[in-house]
């Protein structure tokens, strides 16, 4: 359909305005991350929108290298919080995807676990804050407090609904002919699942895993409650990047924020076409 020139102009103006609003906060953080202290601590009229003297000082600082310009030293670097975020998100994703994929296949092909779809949606409905008291008690009983494996377990449970629903819609969409042919050939059902179905589903599995990873990586509240010192994750650690002498270390926070923000944005763009399906529990496909 050919549209009029005024409409096209309007469209571009509106989209560019939305683009500016979308990008300014992100670009501000990027800019702060590369500013030297004199620039990121400036306020009011001295504010610079883009670093005049770009530097990697902020990144060096959070990884423990002493930078001459900052009078404070960190009592711990960002390395371990990054490791904690990575380990808990990766293993949490493994738990959710393992249990979710198996259950989704069991339901999709054999009709087992009819209660799961509703139970898992309820799990998603409730605010995590409303179940954290028992979880904290259970986790201290199991000696899981302040550990990446404790986080991984709760992450695996919290994102199980997404893994299950995503994989269920993928299995439902998959043609059955190949599986049936293999059955006729005398393959056991388990063999069909592990040797034929799963390899065929590699791409959907990867998309679902990335989606679940983004969710786990994005957590703040659970880590805030379940980790205290040893295995705090990136967002929890970030709060400690301030000092009584210099106040908020904006530059350091921006640098670490950038490190935390890049993986999910890249992954999210990579799995763009499955985002709708993931976010709506498979109710909608793009």
């Amino acid at each position, binding site marked *: 359909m050919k549209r009029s020139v005024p409409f096209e102009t309007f469209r571009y103006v509106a989209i560019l305005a939305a683009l500016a609003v979308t990008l300014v906060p*992100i670009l501000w953080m990027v800019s702060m991350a590369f500013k030297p202290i004199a620039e990121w601590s400036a306020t009011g009229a001295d504010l610079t929108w883009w670093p005049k003297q770009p530097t990697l000082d902020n990144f060096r600082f959070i990884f423990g290298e002493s930078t001459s310009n900052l009078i404070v030293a960190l009592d711990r670097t960002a390395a371990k919080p990054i490791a904690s975020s990575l380990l808990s998100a990766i293993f949490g994703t493994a738990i959710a995807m393992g249990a979710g994929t198996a259950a989704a296949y069991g339901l999709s092909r054999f009709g087992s676990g009819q209660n799961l779809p509703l139970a898992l949606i309820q799990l998603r409905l409730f605010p995590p804050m409303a179940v954290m*008291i028992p979880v904290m008690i259970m986790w201290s009983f199991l000696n899981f407090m302040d550990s990446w494996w404790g986080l991984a377990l709760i992450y695996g*449970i919290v994102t199980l609904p997404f893994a299950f629903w995503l994989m269920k819609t993928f299995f439902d969409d998959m043609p059955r002919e190949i599986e049936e042919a293999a059955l006729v050939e005398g393959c056991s059902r388990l063999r069909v699942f592990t040797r034929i179905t799963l390899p065929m589903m590699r791409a959907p599995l990867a998309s679902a895993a990335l989606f679940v990873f983004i969710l786990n990586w994005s957590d703040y509240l659970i880590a805030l409650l379940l980790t205290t010192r040893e295995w705090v994750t990136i967002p929890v650690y*970030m709060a400690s990047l301030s000092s009584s002498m210099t106040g908020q270390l904006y530059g350091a926070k921006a640098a670490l924020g950038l490190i935390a923000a890049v993986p999910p944005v890249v992954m999210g763009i990579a799995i763009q076409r499955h985002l709708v399906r993931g976010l709506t529990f498979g109710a909608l496909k793009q």
Partner: protein
Amino acid sequence: MNATAIMKHRDAAVSDGENTAAGVTDAEAARLGFRLTLPAQILVLFISAFPLLMQLYISLTDWSPLSGIGWWSAWELWNNFANYTDLAADGRFWSALGRTAIVMLVCVPAEFLLGLALATLFMDEFPGKRFFYSVMLMPMMVVPAVAGYMFFMLFQSGGPVNDLLSSLTGFPVTVAWLSDPTLALVAVMIADIWQWTPLMFLILLAGLVGVPEDQIKAATLLGANAWQRFTTIVLPKMKTIIVIALAIRVIENFKIFDTLYIMTGGGPGVATETISVYIYKVTTQDLIWGYVAAIALAILVVLSVVAVLAMKRMAQGREA
């Protein structure tokens, strides 16, 4: 979202039965199905049945981690349902609930309208569409806590937001956004709208693209203008998708915590304290866990009732 998804699932289950009726009857399949679903069942049970019973038990007592006794002996601190009567009279709880409702009533419609407007601009092809689309989705992928730090920086009194306002208005603006009770709430809502409008945009665009084009063309030939086409053809076709998108945001917005807590910590005072922030503070600062358990259970019960009613309503709408 929930009701539709579940109804879809039921439909799928029915057709599954037909498709594989010949193969599934044997015991091997049933056994394998049971084994495959077992880990998920165990995880669900592990996080629902036992914790809920524990929560119910603790909620009837004055137990706290500082009580010096294990939670299982909490009955020694039995308090005759005092937590629940306290809750009914807890002004801070009710105002936190009200504030959560206000945030929801502002943010969700704003996100919906902005998302819908943007989505209509993306309905047909134009140069640069893919690029703009990808950029537009970025905010929802930024870790919410990081978005919180971003907006915390932006809204400082000597920060870029005021700088921008200064250069627009011509005189220096030094609003202390995050320490003013009203403006702090506004700032928090702006951050939420910034982050989650893309989600509305994404879902609504998926719906808009699915509206059959020939119907729109037919209406155009019959002389309907763009607004008429939108209200009489596009919106009715989008009904389910709109409900799903709104439901997702209502559910998620009710839980609002990360960005808000980092930006304001619920303050100044309790000016931006939503229900999750309130529970968090009582849990970690006041440490009265028996009471927290009561609040949490009350919320779980209310949410469950709302969810069941909503699903029933939607199921009726579907039959009609």
